[in-house]
């Protein structure tokens, strides 16, 4: 084949991506070394001052970061457990499979923010149906205005939105498994529980890891839900890293500092996701 042609295929896409991606990142790193804000717009050079401030004098960022880790780990593990058990329940059943697929695609396809708007009315303290049902038992928890309950609400909404994704991935995985190991296990007289522990689960490990990682990546970006549901409040108790950077950068217009924040956030995300995926591979595959 003529080797000039292959570049003609690849380069338009690659250049567009580099043009609108690498350049912003470079710009962001440069920005993080400046003190650009509303009073002094412009690219001056103040060295690593922003980073010093970030590491020594900004507990709000670290708090929001730990909150983010807590939220994403909880939501993803809940999604994995619910999604996996549902997938296990329906994967042999053709009619149920079809039904659940259609049903579960619906939350996945809806715009998260818009559903969050609806969830907000759903959890409304005096007018929403949740508290209406709970009032039978004589309780009316303040879902959105209590520090801890607000987190629970966010977790519920996230689980609702993304469990279907987990379910569909795991179901696709279950359906692509080979039949022989299951037959062998039945011949050996293994019960359903032992079959699950020794056959299904190990076979599903690679797909599980893939699904968990994809979801962790997405969960680490939680922001829309928080913005609509609680706006980070009450106080700063549901603020995630993304939301904090958003407040600093695009509400208080401290561009330089928030660039430093986002760069640090990006690096932490990449490192921790790499470590988590390595750990998961070790835990689940090397049995």
């Amino acid at each position, binding site marked *: *084949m*003529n080797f000039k*042609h*292959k*570049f003609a*295929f*690849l380069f*338009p*896409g690659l250049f*567009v*991506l580099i043009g*609108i*991606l690498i350049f*912003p*990142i470079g*710009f*962001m790193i440069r*920005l993080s070394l400046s003190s650009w804000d509303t009073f002094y717009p412009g690219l001056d050079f103040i060295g690593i001052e922003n980073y010093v401030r970030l590491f020594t004098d900004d507990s709000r960022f670290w708090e929001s970061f730990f909150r983010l880790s807590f939220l994403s780990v909880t939501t993803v593990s809940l999604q994995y457990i619910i999604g996996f058990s549902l997938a296990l329940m329906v994967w042999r059943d053709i009619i149920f499979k*079809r039904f659940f*697929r*259609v*049903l579960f*695609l*619906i939350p*996945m*396809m*809806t*715009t*998260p*923010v*818009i559903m969050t*708007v*609806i969830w*907000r*009315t*759903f959890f409304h303290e005096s*007018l929403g*149906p949740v508290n*209406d049902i709970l009032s039978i038992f004589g309780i009316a928890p303040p879902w959105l205005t209590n520090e801890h309950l607000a987190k629970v609400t966010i977790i519920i909404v996230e689980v*609702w939105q993304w469990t279907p994704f987990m379910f*569909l*991935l795991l179901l*696709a*995985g279950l359906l692509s498994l080979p039949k022989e190991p299951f037959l062998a296990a039945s011949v050996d007289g293994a019960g359903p529980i032992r079959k699950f522990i020794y056959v299904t689960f190990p076979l599903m490990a690679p797909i599980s890891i893939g699904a968990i990682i994809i979801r962790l*990546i997405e969960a680490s*970006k939680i*922001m*829309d839900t928080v913005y609509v549901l609680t706006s980070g409040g009450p106080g700063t108790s549901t603020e995630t*890293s993304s939301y904090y*950077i958003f407040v600093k*950068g*695009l509400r208080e217009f401290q561009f330089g500092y*928030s*660039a430093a924040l*986002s*760069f640090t*956030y*990006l690096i932490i*995300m*990449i490192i921790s996701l790499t470590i988590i995926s390595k750990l998961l591979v070790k835990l689940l595959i090397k049995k």
Partner: protein
Amino acid sequence: MFVIAPFLWALSTSFKDFNSVTGGAKYIPWLQFEPSLEGWSVLIRSQGKGGVNIIEPYFNSVFVTCSASLLSIIFGTLAAYALSRFTFKAGFIKNNDITFFFISQRIMPPIVLSIPFFLMLGFLGLLDSLLGLILVYMVLLMPIAVWIMVDFFNRVPKEIDETALIDGCNPFEAFFKVVLPNSIPGLIVAGLFCIIFGWIDFFFAFILTFTKVQLLPVAIVALNSSVTPWWSLSASALVSVAPLIIVAFIVERYLSKGNLSGALK
């Protein structure tokens, strides 16, 4: 039940009027409250008469999503074809690394890009414009297109293009006349996914536009924070969610054909 509860709630709320909302939670029309069409009629009324501005954002959203998806599909498919058929080597960078580079853009938290995008689009005068949004959405959507299409092309037998080349086509003709018609299912799946991810994005639309150009999700969230009553809020939310539910059923078709199980791996 847990899955569709919010939808039923929104549906019933959209038919309520003032008294039925403020009087506590009610669920079933006619039995518990008198249904009214107020919430829906507000959608088509003009803003001066107390309507909500939803139609223009709707078309903006459709336009931005479709054009960004189309562009990403074009660039993404070309790149995916190259990555699947030819070998590239530049130092230690090989095909897989380039593919990974494309896909890894999904890992990037949007907030990280938002600040440089905000300043750069402002510099170019593209802030608060449709063109700026399309550019940004291409970054979001191209990874998806490349991801799905590379996988798809890998499963299209190589013999097809080799035959075409022997018959005297140049690589471009071979690609457009022979390979592309054979990959329409893949293109449809990739296109649907781009449309989905473009349609549900809120973040960039929220940050990069203000007043002139509004996209649908932003418009609805704006309703949420203003004093807009719940019934029109619910009605507009349902309207915006509807197209994708239709898309969902189409996707389900392809899912059951097993096209996606490979693409999602």
